């Protein structure tokens, strides 16, 4: 009987731990798009390609990437979780792209969610804690 109790307790503990592990965190990074963007979800490599201007469309729709301010925590989170770059690397990438192709980095906005809400085809990112239901479409989530 005791063994059965222990087993049940262990199962409960595992389930509870798993539930906590996958629970939403306020600092999860949500990649969001204006509601005019038809695509439902995208993966990290597609988002990376869009924000490095190697790709200009998602699911056939032309999109406009919008970056958070360069020195913000939000931008730092996006760099490390999606672009897999340090700030220096990202800056270096754009310096080189300017010389190679004359390409400029995506525009920076102070309030990404608001910008995506108002900019048709806009794509950006926001922390979950700052996301407001119904304002934009969530394309991908990158946990904290």
């Amino acid at each position, binding site marked *: 009987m005791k063994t059965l109790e222990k087993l049940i307790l262990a199962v409960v503990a595992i389930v509870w731990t798993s539930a906590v592990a996958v629970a939403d965190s306020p600092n999860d990074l949500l990649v969001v798009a204006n509601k005019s963007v038809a695509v439902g979800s995208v993966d990290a*490599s597609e988002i990376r390609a869009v924000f490095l201007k*190697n*790709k200009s469309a998602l699911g056939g729709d032309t999109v406009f990437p919008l970056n958070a301010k360069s020195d913000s925590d939000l931008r730092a989170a996006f760099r490390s979780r999606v672009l897999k770059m340090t700030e220096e690397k990202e800056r270096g990438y754009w*310096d080189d792209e300017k010389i190679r192709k004359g390409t*400029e980095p995506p525009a920076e*906005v*102070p309030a990404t969610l*608001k*910008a995506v809400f108002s900019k048709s085809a806009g794509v950006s990112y926001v922390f979950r804690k700052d996301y407001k239901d119904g304002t934009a479409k969530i394309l991908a989530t990158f946990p904290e």
Partner: protein
Amino acid sequence: MRTTTLASTLLFASILAPAVAHAQGESEGAQNSPTESAVVPIQKPSSEARLEALEKRVTGLQEENQGLATQLSDLQESQSQSSEPASEIGKTKIFGFFDMSYLKTYYSKGDTLYRAVLPMPTQSTFMLTGVNVFLANQITERLKFLSEIRFTYLPLGNESGTETYAVLPNGSTMNLGTKYSRTDTTVSDPTAQSYRLGGLSLERLQVTYTLNDYLAVTAGHFLTPYGIWNVDHGSPVILMFHAPIFQSVSMMPTQQLGLQLFGRVYLARDLSLDYAGTVSNGRGPEDSVVDLDNDKAVGLRWHLNYEIDDFSISLGQYGYTGRYTDSKKAIYFGPGTGDTSEITTITQQYRERILASDVLIKFFGIRLQGEAVLRQVMFDVPTQVSASEFNGNPAVASQYYSASYSAWGYYGLLAYELPEQLTTRKVRVTPYFYYERFVLNDTVLNSGRNRTFCGGFNIKPYRNLVLKLEYDRFVSDDIVETMPDGSTKTTNNGVGTILVSQVAVTF
């Protein structure tokens, strides 16, 4: 009219209604109070109760005030922060780069021929050739203008020709018909102030219309989409100081005037294929202005890219074919001819086929890079070189002149960006090693065959600043000469060494 009257009435009523209600309320209050006062005995609240009520009231007002302040703050923030990004449409951006070098070249003893032919000065020298300025304008969301202008001190000091003498077995010398000259651009204004004029070179002048990821078209003077070096293009982007010889001598045209169609398709999640097609004037004595023949040059490019986390590989090719034509014009008139006529004579014409291949592998800071170029030149009208230009000696002339030929070159580059733990987070240090082999003309045995070894450091202390320290060693193949009596003479062509440092800046 009736609608207006009705609307006015409703508006009037809506304004009047609250006032009437308020008046009624006051009236009712006035009517009720005597009744209430009659029913409810007047009880004077205690001081403690009144104080408590007042405290509650103050707390409520404070909370209300706090709420209003927050609302005001939000409002001010939303007003100060534009929700839409500032439009980049129509704004002209100016940026660019320049570099300065300090170098010293050494040659092995007896290496006079090599020393004379190479453009590198043997004395230590600072070297600054110019600045590249970019002007970019996103005309519409799909249309973009880009120009790259190189302002340079050149042609000041441009050297051409080498006065060359062959020393015959009997000790006499023979001038091989070439002449040395150096350009001086000094001019004086009316006040006798002298200046040295410079020049400018339009590296790129193009407009690009992007339909979608799959298709875009560039019209103008564009960089030939081949290899790695030519696309990286600028000294701050390029890892090394020394450029591959096939790049320096334009074995493939570095720029073309015409059209380029290009695009990218994703074959899988992390695998993309870039492609391009070019139609241009091709190579010619003035190809960036006009073409001197009707034969347009065409080129095709494919480039596969695979990237996942810290590993990426890309490889591609660009094939090009075109015709080079040079000509001269003459007008014939006078009593001996029926009508005045202009005659255009082709002085040189050849078809060329070029294939360039490249591969780049990057993983965990290691960079493996290689390029190869193969060029075939087939003359239709060879350059008019006669034996008389070699003092009437056809045996010598034949060594310095050949019709159709092949040229090729390749290099391999290994570099490693040191991890942040060994440097600092901000400073990027990349040591590199390089090997190159080229043959500029396979029908000429005596020159243009070389191996190059390089090693150095690329240091990036700041985002916009690159320092390079490099050691270059050029080893030429032996010279095998056929003497007038038919015998051959082999000469060690020696070794050239360059020590160079360069600073490259972007702005």
